[in-house]
């Protein structure tokens, strides 16, 4: 039996080719992702280990933590500790490290970096073992006004040693570049570094001369890091801790993992999963057809005495072999993919140069588990069907592929659809937990739609094919008949595309809705006439000076700076907006329910209605905010407003005067400007930009441009998602090609007859092509309807949970999706159509 299976698999290798390819692409994506992220982890680890190699012990403040996307800083440490360390044995070197944000402005007046990786402002560390960088040109900064910057920033800003430049801390200051440095390990990963003298760094970046971000110690030869850490710990005041360099490195890696690598990996894995899901449908379909076409073969085996289990095992074994071959290929292709992408990532400054690919057990195991697993799962049902064939079928001239629709399947499909409907309705009607209910409903509806495919295939194809038939006469009619002659096959062929298109549509609709929401909510995030925003989110922010400078402009009537504060409220790290309350007036139209926002006192806080409802707060209550420096702000609730979730001000408003004394670096995220009467938008923009030019040229948007940019960000992300989904569409396309090839093979005699009767080659090709297009459009239409529906459900569910969100289906983009579906049909038909046209008429019609 084993030999029969192997021989049979080998003889059918051409049919299995499509299956293998689908699995290869899916697993390659998976392996590529895992290898890439393992490699990045490995190279980041080696870089971090290199950089921190000379650090034995780090002394730092306790506390800090993660608030959403923001890592709250640890409290600063008192540099007086350095004096206490003088007497400690085993210390070879001790230096303070000061680390904050400072953004270099290039020769063209535009800030450099800040699009993600931090723009670091640091002190020059003299000990080469403790310093995370090496000096490569010039000298170390020795006096106020002198800096060393990293070579990549110098290159990007066209700056050289000996030149003066502006650094924003965030207040713009003039500096002289005296040296160039490179990070240890070589790659900057996009991080920019500006090193001042320690004194200046303390003044500029921390606002006081007796503090440091942390203190770095190097142990002498005779003392281990752990010993030194213990020894030092005894001398430290409360709230300050000492950890070894190894711990420090691990933490940094964990942070990086959380902030970047884990997200990067999870993001890609989602799309690998989608590709594999589509591949599963495609493989299931191929196996169904090959099993159906071999039903007589299976029946003969049964007649000759093979047991059901043996037939079942024979199909499954074929699946395992297919899966194994595909997994090996997928592993190889995936590693190739990763190495290709690694090169591309190197161009973004990631430390990948010379990094060797890390092919971990994880990646290899995943390749085999998923490759073989997916193939087996997809072949289970067809294998079961093959084993059910009656031995007598070998003797009868059975109609090989029964296209009758299973009642059970119909029933389950309808039940799932009903369950899905109930959950969706509950999600939209009942308060709370909408998203969870919507998700359950979405899964039920999707599976239901898939199960009902064979039932919907006939009517849906009739609708889709109507115009084809009218347009292409008998060719169209034949194509349509061929498409519906086996509804189950049509349904499962198109279901791969349905999944792909459904997900594309879902993303498109959700993105469209987000954009519509952004446009709708622009009132909440855009005040006045113009808004100044620093380009990225990891830059130095906007200096408070800019607010004053703008206010001095004759063209300007009002200016509102919007900052972000971090602190612990009720033991939870929280963010809150910082404003100068009177400046709010006439700028942001807040719906105030109680109290007054515009004359919020210094010890006041304005909170949104949601805090009233959820936390039971009332006007006059005191909220304690613990800041990183240990101070506790006591702010009395002086106003309650209704916030929209997309509002720029969030849910808590604190006067900036309360926060400023405790901030190490005070910067605004955005500054809104109201123009004076009679000043045109163009005049105002010119004036504001002239001020902005002294602050690293942040963007100045009017209302339209602001919306456009926000929408553009979403569209950019959507474009990346589209690229990643392309693979799933390609796999679906190959699935259709595969089915079509098998169908053409099955219909050899029909095709011969048609050719004998006078069907031209081009008519024959058109017939196959239109069949493909009809099947593809069926899948596309189902996917489109399903995706739009799910998108609507999710948007509405989010709206129900969060209280905002507008549903919008971008018609133009969805029309493109339909066109894409048709194109998939045309492309999928290329090979089968060519093959059909090449069939020898004579062999096709020759009587047996």
């Amino acid at each position, binding site marked *: 039996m084993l030999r029969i299976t192997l021989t049979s698999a080998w003889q059918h290798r051409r049919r299995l080719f499509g299956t293998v390819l689908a699995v290869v692409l899916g697993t390659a994506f998976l392996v590529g992702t895992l290898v890439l992220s393992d490699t990045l982890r490995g190279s980041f680890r080696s870089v971090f280990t290199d950089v921190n190699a000379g650090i034995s012990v780090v002394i730092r403040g306790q506390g800090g933590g993660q608030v959403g996307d923001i890592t709250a800083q640890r409290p600063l440490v008192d540099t007086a500790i350095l004096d206490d360390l003088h007497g400690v044995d085993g210390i070879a070197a001790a230096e303070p490290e000061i680390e904050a944000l400072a953004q270099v402005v290039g020769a063209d007046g535009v800030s450099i970096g800040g699009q993600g990786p931090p723009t670091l402002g640091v002190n020059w560390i003299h000990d080469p073992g403790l310093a995370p960088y090496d000096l490569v040109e010039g000298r170390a900064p020795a006096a106020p006004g002198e800096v060393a910057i990293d070579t990549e920033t110098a290159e990007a800003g066209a700056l050289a040693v000996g030149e003066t430049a502006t650094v924003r801390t965030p207040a713009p200051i003039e500096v002289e570049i005296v040296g160039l440095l490179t990070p240890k390990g070589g790659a900057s990963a996009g991080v920019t570094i500006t090193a001042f003298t320690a004194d200046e760094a303390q003044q500029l970046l921390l606002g006081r001369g007796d503090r440091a971000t942390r203190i770095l110690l190097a142990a002498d030869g005779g003392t281990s890091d752990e010993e030194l850490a213990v020894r030092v710990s005894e001398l430290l005041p409360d709230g300050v801790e000492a950890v070894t360099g190894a711990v420090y490195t691990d933490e940094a890696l964990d942070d990086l993992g959380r902030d970047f690598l884990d997200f990067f990996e999870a993001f890609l894995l989602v799309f690998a999963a989608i590709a594999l899901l589509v591949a599963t449908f495609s493989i299931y379909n191929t196996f169904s057809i090959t099993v159906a076409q071999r039903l007589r073969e299976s029946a003969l085996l049964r007649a000759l005495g093979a047991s059901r289990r043996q037939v079942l095992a024979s199909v499954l074994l074929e699946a395992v072999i297919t899966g194994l071959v595909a997994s090996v290929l997928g592993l190889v292709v995936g590693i190739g993919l990763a190495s290709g992408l690694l090169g591309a990532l190197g161009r973004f400054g990631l430390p990948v140069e010379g990094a060797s690919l890390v092919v971990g057990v994880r990646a290899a195991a995943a390749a085999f588990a998923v490759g073989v697993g997916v193939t087996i799962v997809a072949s289970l049902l067809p294998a079961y069907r093959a084993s059910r064939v009656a031995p007598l079928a070998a003797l009868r001239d059975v109609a090989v592929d029964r296209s009758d629709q299973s009642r059970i399947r119909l029933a389950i499909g309808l039940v799932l659809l009903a369950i899905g409907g109930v959950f969706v309705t509950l999600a939209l009607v009942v308060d709370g937990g909408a998203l969870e209910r919507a998700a359950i409903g979405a899964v039920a509806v999707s599976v239901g739609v898939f199960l009902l495919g064979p039932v919907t295939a006939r009517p849906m194809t009739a609708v889709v094919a109507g115009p084809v038939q009218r347009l292409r006469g008998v060719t169209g009619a034949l194509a349509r008949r061929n498409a519906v002659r086996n509804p189950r096959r049509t349904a499962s062929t198109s279901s791969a595309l349905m999944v792909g298109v459904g997900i594309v549509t879902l993303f498109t609709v959700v993105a469209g809705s987000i954009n519509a929401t952004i446009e709708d909510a622009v009132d909440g995030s855009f005040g006045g006439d113009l808004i100044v925003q620093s380009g990225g989110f990891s830059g130095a922010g906007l200096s408070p000076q800019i607010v004053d400078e703008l206010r001095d402009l004759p063209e300007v009537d009002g200016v509102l700076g919007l900052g972000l504060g971090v602190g612990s409220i009720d033991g939870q790290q929280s963010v809150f907006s910082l404003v100068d309350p009177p400046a709010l007036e006439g700028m942001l139209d807040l719906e105030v329910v109680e109290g007054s926002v515009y004359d919020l006192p210094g010890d006041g806080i304005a909170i949104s209605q949601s805090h009233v409802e959820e936390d039971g707060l009332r006007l006059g209550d005191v909220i304690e905010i613990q800041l990183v420096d240990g101070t506790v702000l006591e702010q009395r609730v002086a106003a309650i407003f209704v916030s929209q979730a997309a509002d720029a001000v969030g849910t808590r408003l604190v006067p900036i005067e309360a926060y400023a004394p405790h901030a190490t670096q005070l910067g605004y995220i955005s500054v809104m400007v109201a123009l004076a009467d009679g000043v045109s938008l163009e005049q105002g923009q010119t004036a504001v930009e002239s001020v902005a030019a002294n602050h690293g040229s942040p963007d100045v948007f009017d209302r339209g441009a602001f919306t456009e940019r926000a929408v553009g960000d979403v569209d950019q992300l959507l474009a990346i998602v589209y690229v990643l989904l392309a693979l799933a569409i390609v796999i679906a396309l190959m699935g259709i090609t595969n089915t079509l090839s098998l169908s053409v093979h099955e219909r050899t005699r029909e095709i011969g*007859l048609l050719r004998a009767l006078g069907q031209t080659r081009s008519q024959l090709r058109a017939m196959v092509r239109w069949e493909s297009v009809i099947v593809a459009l069926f899948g596309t239409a189902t996917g489109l309807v399903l995706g739009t529906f799910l998108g609507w459900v999710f948007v509405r569910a989010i709206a129900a949970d969060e209280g905002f969100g507008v549903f919008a289906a971008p018609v133009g983009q969805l029309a493109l999706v339909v066109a894409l579906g048709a194109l998939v049909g045309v492309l999928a038909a290329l090979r089968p159509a060519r093959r059909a046209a090449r069939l020898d008429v004579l062999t096709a019609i020759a*009587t047996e």
Partner: protein
Amino acid sequence: MVRSPVRRSVPSMDTPDQASPNAATPAPAATAPVARPAARAVDAVKIYGRGDTSVRALDGISVEIPAGRFTAIMGPSGSGKSTLMHCLAGLDPLTSGQTWIGEVSLADLNDQQLTVLRRDRIGFVFQAFNLLPTLTARENITLPLALVGDDPDPDWFDTVVEVVGLADRLGHRPSELSGGQQQRVAVARALVSRPDVVFADEPTGNLDSRSGAEVLGFLRRAVDDFGQTVVMVTHDPIAAGYADEVLFLADGRLVDRLADPDAEKVLARWAQGEDPVGSAPGEGSTA
């Protein structure tokens, strides 16, 4: 050889004007000039394969298929009868020699032109698998016209359908028709486009004798009533008995012809099958 007074030894359709089609057209000797042959082959050679394994399916055969007549081609398996039909019908190219449909030399045509020729000027009835399972009987009948984009002449369509007795079966799919009905649909399809020649390849091979007789009767009527030219490949002497003339093939050559055949005469000739190989073609068909 004298024409048998018994024209049909098999049950035939009792159509009124069936009286004596052959009487109306004086049976010509096969060597007699034909006004306009519907199809012909000259020195046709067809070799399959190469070298040692090559098979000479047609060995320099020359035949003319007279227009408006029912010609049967008989011969043992491997005699080249199907190959001759395929080559005459433009389904298979010759190795050497020439074939014509009317005045059109098939050797000069490319695949596209051959396809159009088949579609417009030739009708086919095959032994089995004649119909597209996805199309109704009506759609199958009009398929050759539909491939050009033409609508059938409604009167002619009705006449043909009437003749083959399918009027109440037009909406059925092939799977809902009996084998005989399926072949009748095939005959109707072959006639509906009024082709120059209808080629029938063992049209009754898969039918019981009653259904077979019906189908043969229709082909006969097509010749008698409508002046259709029919060429039928068969190994069934009874089927051959419906023809106006039988061509006997052996080893890729025309070995004998029999005008005005009936089953007995065909059988008799068949019996001496091996014998007349040496005899010159045409000899046996002298009246």
